Each structure stands twice: as C-alpha cells, then as structure tokens.
C-alpha cells in the first residue's frame, strides 16, 4: 500500500500506515497530532473502575461499542482483599449493565495481554488501547497498540477515539539465529540493556530480521510486551506465515477480515539498531531496572529465595513447557510459584502433564492472575528476599518489600535457578 502525496511517493512505516488509516488520512508523519478511531479497548480491574467512576461523575453514559471493549479482571483476581473485591464488583456491575459482549468473568478471566490474543481479539492493522502499560504486547500481530491511563481509557470507552502523537520509529534488526538455550526474553533484555529504560521514549519499536522467523507468536509477544520497559510507545512486528497460522487458530473460524500493512522500503527511522542474536547468552536483569542486564555467565551463583514463572511476559504454554522440561524429575531448592496466564493455559498445563511435573517438583501451581508480578498477592517478597522472575519489571518494591529484589530472566533461566536455589545457566539443564 503505497500512497502518493504531491506526485511524490510517501514512504511510511507500518506504524504510520496504521495510524493514518485510523485517523482517516492518506498519510501521517512523526510528531503529527491525530485523532484516531479505536478498534479495540482492553479493560482490567485496576484502571477501569476509576475510568467508569470518572464517566459517571461527568454524566457521560455512552459506551462507543459493546463488541469492541474487552473486559477481564486480572491484577487482583480472584479478589485478594475487601478493597479489591470492591474494584472487581464495580467492574462486574458496569460490564453487565453495559452488556459488554467480551467480558471474561472470574473463572474465564486471566492476565489481559494473554487473554486478548488467545481469545482472538487482536487483529493486524488494528489500533488497540488498554488501561495497562503492557498493552504494547499486541504489536506482535502487526498492529498498533499502546497503554493509557484511566482518563484516556474513559475517553476511549465513551467516544471510540483518542488523540495520539505519531511516534518516530526505531528499527531493531534481529540478525542471526538464537543459540540453544537462548530465548526471546533474552533478546528483549539485551535490547533494553543496549538502549536503556528511556532509550525508546515516545517511539515505536519495530522489530525485523531473520531471528523472528524462528519465533512463535508467544515468543514474539514477549518482545513487544517489554517495549514499554525501554520507554516505547509501542512495539511492532510485521505479518508473516507464523502470524497467519496463529490467527487462523485463534480468530473465529474463517475470520480473515483484517488488513496487513508493511513498512515501505524507504520509510524513515530515527535510529536503526542491529543485534546479532547468534552471539546472545541467557540474560538476567538485575535490580532495580530492566536495563541492568548481565550475561548469566557473569552472574551465576547468586542465591535466590523465590522463583516466579508467569505474567503477560512469560506465562504462556510454551514458557511452561520449557520450565517443565527443566524441572522434570527434580525438586526446587527455593520457593517456586508457577502462574499460568489464562484458564486455557492452566488447563493445557494439566492436560499435557506439565502441572504434575510442577507438583512433583514442589512448586505452587496457581490459578491465573497477575498476582505477585506487581506485588499484589500470591508470592509477595519479604525484606531482603531475592526472586528470579519471568516478569517484566524489577523496580524497587515491585514484588513486595521495598528492600526485596527482583531478577528478570527467561522461563528456562528461572526454572533452572529454582532447582539450584541460585542463578544458574539454563543451558546446562536443557
């Protein structure tokens, strides 16, 4: 899709094309303020109840489209205390009152960024917002997707539109092939190590290159999920056969009603960063920033009190398959909490015998929830404790006491470290 402007061919990135389409314009350029139509809105239990209250307070009763709003409680579900029960109740009452079609009640609910793609709510070419910073995850599907706060969410729910500043794009070329025992989590930790937690501030992070061709959609989502940890507005990966296969399996049967956009060869990038993935090692991001990545070979041996395998970053079935492979027939040496991100994944773990491996290894196998990822519940850290975690943030106090520490890693590294009770190189256990 090449647009001609004033006789010249306007070369655009995939992000610019999607935003231009949503704004009803033939072209857009970075810095431009646009009003974009929203295709989907993701709502969860922390940021949506305040949005609902704001709308009520302003006497705005409209919901722009009951089919396009997807609601799932996740952060504190099932309710962890009375106050969160109140939040869940507010969400539930509103979703029912507004007849929100895609409402995942407790029992069907799961971590938002895992539920939406799994249940077929994410499509290429779409503009999706969500009241959660990791909404950038959906960019793995050649879509524009970004996190917003409650006020933006409220405005989106009411009008189906939102203002955006068209971001500049940074191109990340992922060259080479991932070595054995190195995963997409290690790639994104390396990217963030290189550019820093504000290295992509306000920008779209576009990932291209041969290494992606070997990654499943699950693995790609781990990459786009963490775009926000580099300050990015969005992360995006182009459409290919792997995307198509996932969509064929997850969209409603026969639904191919989506538009595929691609970056033009002459599209402008503010920066291009090349990474040779074949040289990567398993990475661990040390406290208290996701950019504090170290190679496992430089930091193995550090004692851990807890391992956490789950979250919107690495709580999908392939993550548990990897972890189970490592834990099979072994017992963990530190407290280990395994949290499938959705009920479907939870059931897959049971059906595939993975849950039993975790049970035998003496892990806690939890119901789907965000839980301890954000220091909510189900695995909070005490003062001075260290946790190796497959989540995306290791800020001060993120998983509990302000003096606890979170070490971000892949499911393989977390599982191997759980068995040893200290950070270890997963390649020796696979």
């Amino acid at each position: 899709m090449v647009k001609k402007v004033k006789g010249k061919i306007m070369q655009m990135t995939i992000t610019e094309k999607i935003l231009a389409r949503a704004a009803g314009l033939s072209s857009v350029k970075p810095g431009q303020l646009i009003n974009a139509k929203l295709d989907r809105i993701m709502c969860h239990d922390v940021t949506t109840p305040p949005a609902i209250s704001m709308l009520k307070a302003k006497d705005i009763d409209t919901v722009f489209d009951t089919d396009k709003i997807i609601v799932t409680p996740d952060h504190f579900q099932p309710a962890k205390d009375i106050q969160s029960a109140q939040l869940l109740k507010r969400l539930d009452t509103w979703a029912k009152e507004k007849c929100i079609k895609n409402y995942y009640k407790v029992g069907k609910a799961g971590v938002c960024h895992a539920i939406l793609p799994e249940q077929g709510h994410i499509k290429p070419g779409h503009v999706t917002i969500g009241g959660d910073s990791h909404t950038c995850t959906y960019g793995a599907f050649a879509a524009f997707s970004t996190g917003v706060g409650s006020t933006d969410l409220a405005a989106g729910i009411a009008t189906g539109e939102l203002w955006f500043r068209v971001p500049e794009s940074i191109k990340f070329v992922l060259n080479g092939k991932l070595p054995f025992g190195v995963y997409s989590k290690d790639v994104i930790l390396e990217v963030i190590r290189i550019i820093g937690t504000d290295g992509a501030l306000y920008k779209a992070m576009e990932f291209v290159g041969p290494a992606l061709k070997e990654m499943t959609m699950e693995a790609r989502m781990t990459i786009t999920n963490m775009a926000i940890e580099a300050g990015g507005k969005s992360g995006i990966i182009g459409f290919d056969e792997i995307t198509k296969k996932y969509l064929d399996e997850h969209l409603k049967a026969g639904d191919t009603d989506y538009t595929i956009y691609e970056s033009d060869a002459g599209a402008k990038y503010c920066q291009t960063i090349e990474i040779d993935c074949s040289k990567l090692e398993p990475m661990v991001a040390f406290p208290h920033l996701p950019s504090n990545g170290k190679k496992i070979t430089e930091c193995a041996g550090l004692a851990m009190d807890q391992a956490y395998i789950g979250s919107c970053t690495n709580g999908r079935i392939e993550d548990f398959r990897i972890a189970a492979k490592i834990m099979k027939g072994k017992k963990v040496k530190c407290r280990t909490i395994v949290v499938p991100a959705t009920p479907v994944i939870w059931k897959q773990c049971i059906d595939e015998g993975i849950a039993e491996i975790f049970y035998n290894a003496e892990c806690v196998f939890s119901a789907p929830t965000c839980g301890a990822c954000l220091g909510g519940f189900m695995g909070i850290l005490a003062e001075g404790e260290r946790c190796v975690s497959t989540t995306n943030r290791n800020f001060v106090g993120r998983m509990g006491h302000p003096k606890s520490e979170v070490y971000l890693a892949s499911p393989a590294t977390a599982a191997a470290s759980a068995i040893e009770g200290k950070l270890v190189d997963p390649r020796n256990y696979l």
Partner: protein
Amino acid sequence: MPKAHVYKRDHINTDEIIPARYLNTDDAVVLAKHCMEDIDEGFMKKISAGDIIVAGDDFGCGSSREHAVWSIQGAKIGAVIAQSYARIFYRNCINCGFYVIELPNAPQVINDGDEIEIDYKAGEINNKTQKKKISFEPLPDFALEIINDGGLLEHIKKKVK
C-alpha cells in the same frame, strides 16, 4: 511559599510514586498517604500544600496507573519539574489537568528546600532562594486546552453530549 523537594535521580517509576500494594483503591486521599513512599518514606510528613517535586530524567516510568498522578494531586503537590517524563505519565498528567514542567538539568539548578514560584503563562520559574529566574518551554496549545477545560473528560464531554 512552595518548597522544592529535589530527587537527584532518573527513572523514578510509578511503583515508587505509588506502590502497587495500594492500587486496590482509587481514592486520591488514601493514595496520597502513600505518595512517594518507596523512594522517600518521610515524604508526606515533610511536604506542605503547593510544594514541588523536582527530579531527573524519565519521571513516572513504568505502569500506566493514573493512581500515580492522583496520589501526587491528592498530596496537594503544586507541580512536578523534571528533566523529562515517561510517556504515559506525562499524558496522564495532562488528562488530569495537572501541570508538568520539563526543565533541562532540573535537579542541578534547583536545590532541595528552595522556595519556588511558577508563572505558567510566562513559562517562568522564579527561584526565590537563589534569586534566579529560569524560563521553561510551556506545554503545547492542545495540552493547555485540555488542562484549561479541567482535564480530558470535560474536554470530550462536548463531543459525546
């Protein structure tokens, strides 16, 4: 006179501004009790209404929780002056009608305890303690429009009504 509370740090994140353990409420008064708790435990004791938070780069990075802005507003902080902001936090501030100022070298040119007056229209910070005036880039017009309307929802109300 509003006082500056200077944090000579970059990447002060939303978990430090309002820890997730308090996100089970959206009541600004309750949230304010825990404002900045994980970066400065004594914060709420030392501030008075109208005081100003000063920090380095990437202030407000991390979660999309508007609770961070509400806790700051609930604590009656007058403004934040930082070198730069994380995108969602910056946007949330505008949407909540809360003015944020971008100022190069903010934690170097303002000292902890300095008495500060801000002229938003003129884009000028008057540092009474240092007897210095520093100008800043005012927010873009569309953002001012939202702030002047009393936040994004008032701003869009016209559209949906």
